[in-house]
């Protein structure tokens, strides 16, 4: 393993920001940490980097206990949310900075920086200042600066959140390919679950400083540990149905396991156009390839994903069935029931 966190705890005053964090990130893995705002993602990353000192627990980097090492000694590369490029230095100097810090001769450092810039497609910006290049280029400069020193671990804190929607999509792919290319152990922090699902080898879900689940994107999506994870992952969000309606207003193709308190239905599991259930269409949201259809079933709102054919119109009554593989059951504590 390349980065391991053991029983990590961190408090800011009375606020417990990280609680008994246990994580292992393997060599070359792209590992995402996802969670809502304020869940402690940035703090987790900063503890790994050594910018913040934990109150308890240990950080191992490359198998080495790193608790007492300064950030400079940990050999990690980090991309900050706002990039933190030195505004008074050129792009070349920014990228070369970690090499200069190591004591590499200036001309050699700048050569290496130029090479790195070429690999990331920003060689034309080398002589400019960060203020004079686009947001997408700034992001690449930040990536280049973090990678140039060949770090043991690559830490990214919401690196795409400052980009516009179009760019974010292509940058996502770029980061993924870059990570593959370099084969570098990466911890990727984001609050965007779609981003995490699309690029990660594995994902950890963080809420209020507690890790709720660790797994591959598929596992997290298909077998969420609890209702929070099920709700947080997937768009449009999961439909939650009270047990009172199950088998009465809403017909499932299978019966709930004992102890179930809630049913969760993925929007794509609601198959419109025929079936034992009937609901009224409240509204529809068109988004190109697919539409979200909002249904009303005796006061219970349901979101359905609609892919093919003519989008139902508002006020229409429509029949639907519920596909079994998109349904999950939760007990009173919100834990998912298996079986």
């Amino acid at each position: 393993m390349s980065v391991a966190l053991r029983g990590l705890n961190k408090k800011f005053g009375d606020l417990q920001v990280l609680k008994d964090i246990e994580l292992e990130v393997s060599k070359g893995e792209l590992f995402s940490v996802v969670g809502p705002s304020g869940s402690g993602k940035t703090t987790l990353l900063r503890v790994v980097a050594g910018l913040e000192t934990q109150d308890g627990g240990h950080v191992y980097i490359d198998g080495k206990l790193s608790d007492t090492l300064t950030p400079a000694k940990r050999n990690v590369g980090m991309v900050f949310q706002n990039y933190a490029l030195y505004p008074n230095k050129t792009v070349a100097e920014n990228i070369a900075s970690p090499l200069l810090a190591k004591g590499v001769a200036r001309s050699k450092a700048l050569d290496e920086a130029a090479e790195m810039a070429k690999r990331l497609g920003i060689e034309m910006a080398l002589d400019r200042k960060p203020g004079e290049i686009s947001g997408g280029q700034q992001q690449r400069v930040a990536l280049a600066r973090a990678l140039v020193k060949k770090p043991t671990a690559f830490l990214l804190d919401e690196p795409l959140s400052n980009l516009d929607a179009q760019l974010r999509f292509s940058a996502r792919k770029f980061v993924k390919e870059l990570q593959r290319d370099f084969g570098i152990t990466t911890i990727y922090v984001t609050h965007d679950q779609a981003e995490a699902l699309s690029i990660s080898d594995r994902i950890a879900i963080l809420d209020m400083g507690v890790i709720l689940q660790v797994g591959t994107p598929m596992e997290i999506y298909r077998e969420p540990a609890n209702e929070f994870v099920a709700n947080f992952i997937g768009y449009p969000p999961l439909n939650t149905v009270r047990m009172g309606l199950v088998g009465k207003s809403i017909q499932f193709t299978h019966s709930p396991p004992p102890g179930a308190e809630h049913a969760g239905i993925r929007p794509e599991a609601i198959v419109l156009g025929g079936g034992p259930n009937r609901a009224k269409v409240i509204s529809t949201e068109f988004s190109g390839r697919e539409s979200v259809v909002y249904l009303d079933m005796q006061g219970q709102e349901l979101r359905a994903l609609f892919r093919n054919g003519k989008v139902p119109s508002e006020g229409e009554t429509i029949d639907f069935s519920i596909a079994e593989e998109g349904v999950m059951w939760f007990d009173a504590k919100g834990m998912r029931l298996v079986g």
Partner: protein
Amino acid sequence: MAERIFYFPAFFYLVLFAIVPFGLSIYFSAPSGELSSYVTLFSSSQTLRFLENTFIFSFGSAIFAVVLGTALAIFVDSLVRGRRLFSLLAYLPYTIPFTAAALVWITIYDPINGPADYLLRLLGFHAVDWLGQPSLVIYSVTIVSIWTSIPLAFLVVLAGLSSVPAHLKEAAKVDGVGVSDYYTSIAVPMAKSAILTAFLLTLIIAFGNFDLPYILNEGYSYAVATLPLVVYFQIFYANEVAQGLASGIILTAIVSIFSYLLIRVTLSQGKIGKRGSGATGARLSVPRALKIAFRPLIYVVSALTLLFLLFPVYWMGLIATRPDSLNLYNPPLLWPKAASIITFVATAVQAEPYLITTFVVSLAVMALTLILAAPAAFAVARRRKRWLLFLSIYLFSLPSTTFVFGAYYMIYKVGLLNTWIALILTYPIFTLPFAIWTLSNFYNSLPKTFEEAAHIDGYSPIRAFYRVVMPLARPGLFATALLSFVFSWHLLLFPLVLSETPYQFNFPPTGSFAVTNFAALFDPTSFGSTVGANLWAQVGSAGIIVAVPVIVLALAAQNYLLKGLYSGGTKG
């Protein structure tokens, strides 16, 4: 461990050159534990007189400076255009050393041909002898002190008014809130702590003001002396060291109270900043009459204040460059008629050794201050060395008389009297605490992520500071450097005590009279004139020579200075 390197040199300096002299002052005020000097002090009827003078002078200066400065700040803040020009005009007297200012005011107060008496007669009063009549002198000196204090009060209050968030100002406009309502119920209440800071700063500086009373006190009369002056005369003229030091300790104790308040205000300002800038519900209930009269009142007061601030500067230029015969008009001639720069040139030639000394010393002090303060202030801002900030504000507040004997004693013991080194070593007592204060404010406004990026890049804390933080902090460092230079240029008491002769044009240099000594020589009643006939032209010329380098510098770098002043405030 490594972080100590950041603040140890500065701390070491402050201990050696500020705290040790302070301790020496206490020790020698009661040599071998004998408290007779304090007994004498408290039983002497004169003491009460000194205290009364000091309080009239200090509170008079601070109250009027803040009232007039606030009116002027409201006026400038309400302007759509010309804010910069008026700020500059109001800030002009601030750049003029007390020493030069005092000289000019001597001629303004001239009982026969001076414009002050002319104004009195115009207003239908009897002419008075401003600096000659004992019961009057303290008030005359206080007026000059008000004149020198208004700019600082103005700048601090203006900064407070300008920090009202733009959206509040716009909202007030949209809501149709009038100018008077905006200021009385929104802006001034929000600038309350800035106004309080302005008051405490001007008060503290006035308590420690040695220069003005020294130069304006004709005949060295104890009857009109303030405490700093008493300390100086008792120690260095009357040879009553313990007695003078005891007076100094009393002054220090008084100032300590206000310094404590200043630290409290500074602390609470930081908290308000963190809490965010929502509109406060605090509203002053303002009488209707004041509301109506508000705008005209502000305009009239501001116009008069500006006239008051600028006339002496104009007058200084006028008298420096005209033949003596034009000084003898009655009523005084207030505009240029004939120019003659003979006296000015002669005076400037005479000033050369003094200028060289002050220039070299000020440059060296600037460098020393920056080297010590830049990392120390960083430790205050980033490593939460708050105690160093409090120590700095406290030392900054203390009058120069607190340190002067101890510094003299130490310099004397190491045989460095009358050398440039003596001045270079001791001046940072005044510049360093100020620099730590302003620079730490500046670092606080600098985002932390750049340092963190540097740590990740692999820089050690010290290298990250020099490679990444210092280049980013250049504007703040520049402002602090300039202000240190200006401070050094202005200092009078230390060269008065530590120097004996002008620079001898030799090497290694001996003789270390500063330009302020040079100006003090022109006190027409003390040492007498050295150039002959045209006394006013000499006085005006000396004033200009002492003031101009600093004025030019200050104007050239006004952006930096206004910023630097905003965060700290300074001592003249």
